[in-house]
């Protein structure tokens, strides 16, 4: 085991006690096909710590009520907890004001909100929207729908063989027709961390707003919307150790103010008559209907949990996992890693010439290992590299070096069969 180099192990131990942290996640103790679960599908969704589960339980057992406008005790308690969660999100991404934090169902809804509201208002025939070749379908399809409706054009930033955006080509795509740039911060398939700061600077020189799909970044690296100066940022709670069905759209206050509502209904109004409706102020203007109250409070708890460990430390821990896994996977004959960007998050897509990812997935499942196999909702990436699918191991704050060994050993067994 010459690859088990001392530095990586030591670094991991010194950053935090991962075995102590694993105790917080009850699901990590379950057996899958008589093997200890080795959960390496964190880019799809993360597991939830007991603290978040307790918060959800506490909400439904002692606080459950509909928020805003209620005059009774429970409604007040629930409203306070909900709005407190909003402030936690605001602080987590360092937004200027909680008015800039809108609760949605997830990243997909956040992007659709911008497409429907900002997009419908500002995109006209002949205009252009720029996205990249490494977008998740959720950052492609809403813009396609909008472009079809408005007879606008979708422009695609190409990527190179390592899975990095070709920056010069991006600059060439910018023109006075460009009305929005929407790019992924961290690629869910390739792990690439995109140079979003430079993208935003280039865009703002031309007065073009930028949306960042941060679904795969808020859980892996510190995100500061004021430093980035992004105009919109979207992410999901469930990839940040929080519940499913809750997500965030951050938007700069002045831009959100200028946007029409996305959905109509309760809570987003201030006065309704049959002749006319005046809309509620931010952020409520964009939160029609009863929100996922438990989800929002649960997300607040997940943010507390992540903050208690420290996102900087999580980034170091996952960086060590990425380095070790990359090194060890290279031991497996015939394995090629897809996505070799210089700046990468702890996501590793890999392929074999002669073994289909689906077969890999089934074999690994029998070792208790959960990886994702398929196109990862990024079919244009598969087309770019001319492959049908990949297997993807993605790491979270609770993964260990031993789990990397379990994966590598299992893969070595698989290739013996084929």
């Amino acid at each position, binding site marked *: 085991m010459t690859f088990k180099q001392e530095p990586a192990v030591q670094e991991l131990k010194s950053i935090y006690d991962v075995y102590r942290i694993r105790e917080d996640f009850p699901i990590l103790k379950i057996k899958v096909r008589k093997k200890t679960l080795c959960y390496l599908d964190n880019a799809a969704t993360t597991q939830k710590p007991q603290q978040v589960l307790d918060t959800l339980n506490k909400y439904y057992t002692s606080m459950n009520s509909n928020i805003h406008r209620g005059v009774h005790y429970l409604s007040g308690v629930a409203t306070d907890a909900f709005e407190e969660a909003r402030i936690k999100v605001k602080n987590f991404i360092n937004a200027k004001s909680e008015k800039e934090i809108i609760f949605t169902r997830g990243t997909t809804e956040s992007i659709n909100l911008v497409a429907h509201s900002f997009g419908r208002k500002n995109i006209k025939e002949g205009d252009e929207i720029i996205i990249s070749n490494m977008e998740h379908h959720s950052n492609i399809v809403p813009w396609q729908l909008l472009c079809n409706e408005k007879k606008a054009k979708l422009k695609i930033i190409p990527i190179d063989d390592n899975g990095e955006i070709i920056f010069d080509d991006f600059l060439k795509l910018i023109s006075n027709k460009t009305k929005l740039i929407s790019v992924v911060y961290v690629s869910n398939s390739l792990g690439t961390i995109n140079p979003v700061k430079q993208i935003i600077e280039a865009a703002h020189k031309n007065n073009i707003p930028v949306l960042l799909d941060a679904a795969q970044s808020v859980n892996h690296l510190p995100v500061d919307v004021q430093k980035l100066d992004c105009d919109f940022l979207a992410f999901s709670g469930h990839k940040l150790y929080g519940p499913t069905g809750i997500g965030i759209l951050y938007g700069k206050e002045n831009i959100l103010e200028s946007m029409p509502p996305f959905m109509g209904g309760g809570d987003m109004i201030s006065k309704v008559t049959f002749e006319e409706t005046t809309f509620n102020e931010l952020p409520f203007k964009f939160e029609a209907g009863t929100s996922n109250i438990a989800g929002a409070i649960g997300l607040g708890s997940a943010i507390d949990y992540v903050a208690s460990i420290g996102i900087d430390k999580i980034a170091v821990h996952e960086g060590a996992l990425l380095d070790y896994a990359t090194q060890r996977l290279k031991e497996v004959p015939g394995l090629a890693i897809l996505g070799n960007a210089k700046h990468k998050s702890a996501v590793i897509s890999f392929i074999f010439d*002669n073994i*289909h*990812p*689906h*077969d890999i997935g089934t074999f690994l499942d*029998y070792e208790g290992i959960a990886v994702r196999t398929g196109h990862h909702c990024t079919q244009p990436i598969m087309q770019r590299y001319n492959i*049908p*699918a990949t297997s993807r191991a993605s790491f979270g704050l609770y993964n260990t070096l031993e789990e990397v060994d379990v994966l590598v050993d299992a893969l070595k067994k698989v290739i013996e*069969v*084929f």
Partner: protein
Amino acid sequence: MLNSELRELYQQVILDHNKSPRNFKKLETANRTAEGYNPLCGDKIDIFLDVENGIVKDISFQGSGCAISKASASLMSTVVKGKTIEEAKKLFEKFHDLITRKLDEDESIEELGKLAVLAGVKEFPIRVKCASLAWHTMLSALKNDDKTVKTE
């Protein structure tokens, strides 16, 4: 060592058909073709048929997919050749019943011949689509239906 369910699924015959698929080419004499696609895993298959007087004179396939889908296509191509359209349809019904646990194995496994090696699929409901993609595509080609067949 391999788990017994896995060994049942990935039998030597299947691994062999995966490695060296039979009739894996474009059929120049084809008069019916269809394309199959499984959006779940990206599997793609093209089926080529030479049908004359209701009989499958020749069959071939091309495409990419997992071991189960490739082996299933390869095995299908070897058993369907020379069969009538009706016989091919019936064979698929039996085969589909086998992999979805609707068939009493002892009763009619003999009729399935070589196809019986895919019986292990029944322990893996997620993989039924892999094993049946080639068949659905062939049936579509028999109908001379040019639409892409999807398993989703």
